[in-house]
């Protein structure tokens, strides 16, 4: 073989391996998209497509069962939703519900976590008891609480009577009903968030705590000035998760009160559910969905900002 020939073969080998390399590079460039494809498919179908549909649907109105045609109403549905007193009540209720659940839940979760820190048998039992409610489906918890809240002979009233007290109509008094739902939710969720705090507590720098003790700080001061700040990222994380959950679970309303009495326990998601499935006002339901989603996003982004700042602060 001549040198030229050998070089030619060498060239072609180099070229083919270069081609193989570039082919491989091309594949590598496409790889991330291939990996993400399945997730993106489902995300598209069940998160983004619905949002698009909702936006479109919210602009139309098809009166149910009158034979009238679907008509384009532009922002008409939004106006109807925003002027609907039931929507106002649902939004207000959701706000009260969110704060009313979040604050006690966080406090209790932290308190429980602090209480069961040590790994004694007793702590293990406590941990089980507190955590257990979160394992149970909300529907099951609601059924139990239906009995607990039963006027007169239910669990609460029965034992209150033994103490000589008289409870209100837990689910039938429009001033109390929402708080009963709040109570049920706190009972159910506190134990779940307790676990996050247990994890968070393990990350509190031991030396800082000891330094504070040496400086003569008592338990309260240690809590306020050392532990709580160190737990900021955990608190932020729990808050975001809790808020999302609070806006998107209405199982207990469905089972216990169906929004009543007189909208006292109507929540945004339940309002949407009712508009769509009981009143067949799909345009209105779509508009309400979009409004709720906007609120959800605003809250989440807001809290994420805080979380990110906290995470960056802690390195």
């Amino acid at each position, binding site marked *: 073989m001549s040198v030229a020939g050998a070089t030619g073969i060498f060239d072609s080998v180099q070229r083919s391996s270069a081609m193989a390399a570039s082919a491989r590079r091309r594949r590598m460039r496409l790889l991330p998209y291939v990996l993400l494809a399945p997730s993106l498919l489902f995300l598209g179908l069940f998160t983004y497509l619905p949002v698009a549909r909702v936006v479109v649907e919210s602009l139309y109105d098809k*009166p*149910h069962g009158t034979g009238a045609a679907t008509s384009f109403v532009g922002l008409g549905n939004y106006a109807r939703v925003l002027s609907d007193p039931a929507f106002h009540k649902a939004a207000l209720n959701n706000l009260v519900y969110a704060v009313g659940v979040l604050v006690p839940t966080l406090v209790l979760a932290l308190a429980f976590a602090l209480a069961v820190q040590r790994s004694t048998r007793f702590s293990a039992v406590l941990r089980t008891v507190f955590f257990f409610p979160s394992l149970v489906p909300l529907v099951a918890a609601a059924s139990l609480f239906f009995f607990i809240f*039963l006027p007169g*002979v239910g669990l609460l009233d029965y034992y209150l009577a033994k103490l000589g007290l008289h409870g209100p109509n837990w689910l*039938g008094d429009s001033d109390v009903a929402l708080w009963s739902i709040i109570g049920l939710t706190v009972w159910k969720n506190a134990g779940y968030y307790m676990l996050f705090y247990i994890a968070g507590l393990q990350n509190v720098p031991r030396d800082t705590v000891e330094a504070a003790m040496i400086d003569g700080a008592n338990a309260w001061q240690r809590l306020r000035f050392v532990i709580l700040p160190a737990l900021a990222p955990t608190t932020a994380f729990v808050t975001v998760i809790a808020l999302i959950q609070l806006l998107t679970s209405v199982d207990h309303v469905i089972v216990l009160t169906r929004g009543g009495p*007189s909208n006292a326990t109507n929540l945004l998601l339940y309002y949407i559910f009712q508009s769509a499935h*009981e009143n067949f006002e799909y345009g209105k339901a779509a508009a309400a969905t979009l409004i709720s989603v906007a609120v959800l996003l605003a809250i989440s982004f807001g809290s994420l900002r805080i979380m990110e700042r906290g995470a960056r602060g802690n390195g």
Partner: protein
Amino acid sequence: MTIVTRLGMGALALTFATAALPAWAQTKIEFFFPVPVEGKLAREMTRLTKLYNESQKGVEVTAVYTGGYDDTKLKAQAAAKAGKPPSVVLMSANFLVDLKLSGDILPLEPMLKADETTRDDYLKDFWPALHANAVVDGELYGVPFHNSTPLLYYNVEHFKEAGIDPAKPPRTWVELVDAAKKLTKGDRYGFLMPAGYDYLGWLMEALSMSNGGRYFNEEYGGEVYYDQPSMLGAARFVEDLIFKHKVMPQGVTEAGGVSTQFFAGKASMVLLSTGSLSFIRENMKQAYDVAFVPKNVRNAVPIGGASLVMFAGQSEDSKKAGWKFIKWLTTPETLGGWSRFTGYFAPRKSSYDKPEMKEFIAKNPDAKVALDQLPYAKPWFATYQTVAVRKALEDEIQAMMNGKKKADQAVKDAQKKADELMRPYVEQTSLKLP
């Protein structure tokens, strides 16, 4: 055997085989049913369905328990929307207008024609009070299955203790308040009525009818009469029971809670459906009795209960199968048996001519009272968007029972909301002018 004979036998066998095929090609249909009272009824209905399936081969019915009346409507319509309508649904009797307007249910006239009977002939055996809710715009849309009226249940022992003659229960609103005042003491209330969704609307209809009025326009689904004197008076009456006479607790109590209180002796008189008759008979430990709903102007009560309807969008085979099942479910004997089991009254007059029924009534006089109230029974309210229009009233009355509104304001607001809900229909009908 000769070849011809063999061939002949073969042909015969083939004919039999193909004739038997339809029996093998079963029609499968779905039957949605609510059970308004308790789990036992759901089990019984499932048992009845199984009985039907075993009694014949052509149709296989899958019975689906779908919760309460409102939930059943929800589920049936959701299924229809998704393209899989149930064949037969036991639907609250007053949803027929709503469902017909939305095109969800089929007229049963073609089935009657195929059976060579007319609507009038078919309905002759059913109590007159039930006809109006089963017929929409002159066509039959549902077959009544079990019906009820509200009844006043009262604790006989409490009566004796308070010095009231148990054989003379209150007949008028005046007597009711009187008795309730004597019975209320300690943590026991003289009177209690369910105020949850669906029940409250029904009972308010009963009270406003007893007050001389009509809740709605029976012939036109676009008008309700919430702010008229008869309903206003009924609302004020309920308000007074709670706040003026103090014989009823404040707030909303669900039906389950009301019966529980009755059993526990914490409520002496309760307004409940005849559908709860069996449940109460079985669980009430103290002596009790039943009476008509007390009147203010006249004796009048709405019927309650459910009818069998067929949903649109099913195949011809499915329709035939569904109709066969409906006919089986509504024979006088089956209806009578169900009535004795549940406490609902049987919609067929002929059910009461059967010996088992006569014996049952003789042994259980409380069942007879429900029957005696029938001549005073009127149609259940049925309008365009029945559920939403009903809730418009219920939400306001619930607010009133919680002390948030006065009766006058409540009925006014209810009327306003109801009118707005019915506007789309009204604008397409009576307000649509050339």
